[in-house]
């Protein structure tokens, strides 16, 4: 073994971690190599120095451990209870929203949102009466007619509003034209008056000279 190999094994040799063959080879090398012996002595000194560190004195309180453990378990249970309550509330809202049908209808010119009684989500085809007949189909037909009337009313409102807006714009336009004409007249009068004043003023001065 060379010095590099031996020095890599010195720590193991010092702590008795070498197999018999390995330990013997190390000893043979050390017998004839002073630098490796010095290295071994230095490591022995390091090992002794490590033993100088004092061990801290600690007294673990078992009752406090049990109290802390009980506290943690209680907090964990509270957290799971909150999670479960939140999940149940969310599920209840979901079920209420999904399975409770809501009816939107037009009554006396107002849109009305009404909770209806529970109906199956899927109606069997044979249970549905043909269109135009009384019963569920009649209700649906009436609702469709109401919605159509509502849409027509809304469209008429929009047209009326547009017409009003156009009339207002036309009126504004007329007033602006009138105002512009008045301003033009005043400006013309003002210019005439200024010219007259200028003539009076400077024309007199020229005659006076």
């Amino acid at each position, binding site marked *: 073994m060379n010095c590099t190999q031996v020095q*890599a*094994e*010195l*720590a*193991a040799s*010092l*702590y008795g*971690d070498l197999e018999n063959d390995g330990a013997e080879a190390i000893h043979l090398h050390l017998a004839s190599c*002073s630098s490796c*012996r*010095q290295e*071994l*002595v*230095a*490591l022995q*000194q*390091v*090992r*002794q*120095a*490590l033993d*100088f*560190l*004092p*061990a*801290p*004195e*600690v*007294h*673990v*309180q*078992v009752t*406090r*451990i*049990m109290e*802390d*453990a009980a506290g*943690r378990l209680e907090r964990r249970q509270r957290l799971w209870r909150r999670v479960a309550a939140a999940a149940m509330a969310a599920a209840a809202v979901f079920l209420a929203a999904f399975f409770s049908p809501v009816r939107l209808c037009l009554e006396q010119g107002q849109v009305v949102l009404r909770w209806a009684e529970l109906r199956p989500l899927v109606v069997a085809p044979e249970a549905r009466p043909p269109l135009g007949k009384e019963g569920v189909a009649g209700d649906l037909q009436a609702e469709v007619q109401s919605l159509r009337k509502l849409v027509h009313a809304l469209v008429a409102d929009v047209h009326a509003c547009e017409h009003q807006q156009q009339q207002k714009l036309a009126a504004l336009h007329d007033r602006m034209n009138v105002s512009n004409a008045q301003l033009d007249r005043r400006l013309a009068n003002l210019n005439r008056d200024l010219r007259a004043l200028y003539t009076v003023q400077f024309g007199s001065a020229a005659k006076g000279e």
Partner: protein
Amino acid sequence: MVERWRRGDPGAFEELVRRWQTPIARFLARMGCADDQVADLCQEVFLRVYLVRGRYRETGCFRTWLYQIALNAARDASRRRQHRQCRLVPRSNYAPPERLAEDGESFAQTRELIQLVQAALAKLPELLREVLVLRHYEALTFEEMSRVLETPASTLKSRFAQALIRLKQHLPSSLYNTETVD
């Protein structure tokens, strides 16, 4: 005792704590925990032991399992706190001790030596320090250490050798007897 503790005997848990509190406290201190934190961290380690009693396998080795918990606690504490660099006492500020005799010298020199060793240990990378502490102070075999650190034993042997050599480099050379040994 371990078997009684597993079955929920509170007296057995108390015995376990009394038996292992000093080694665990020593381990935590060597791993770099501040002196004022060792007691609290030790309490935390045994609290974790108490809480996860159900996870301990009957066929396992209690010592390695306990050191695993302690190591995780030490690593958590190290991540939480800011790493404090321990500075070696400058040579001009202390009288260099005589070459270390086998029986140690005066109290002041011992105190200085303790500071030097603590500083040198703190300078080691965490991976090397863990192996050194477990091997030197806790006398774990490399096979036991490999279960604690989840690393092959051969890797740990090489880390241990490196740790000793680096520790030697971090300690003042005046500590070593440089006379030729025949």
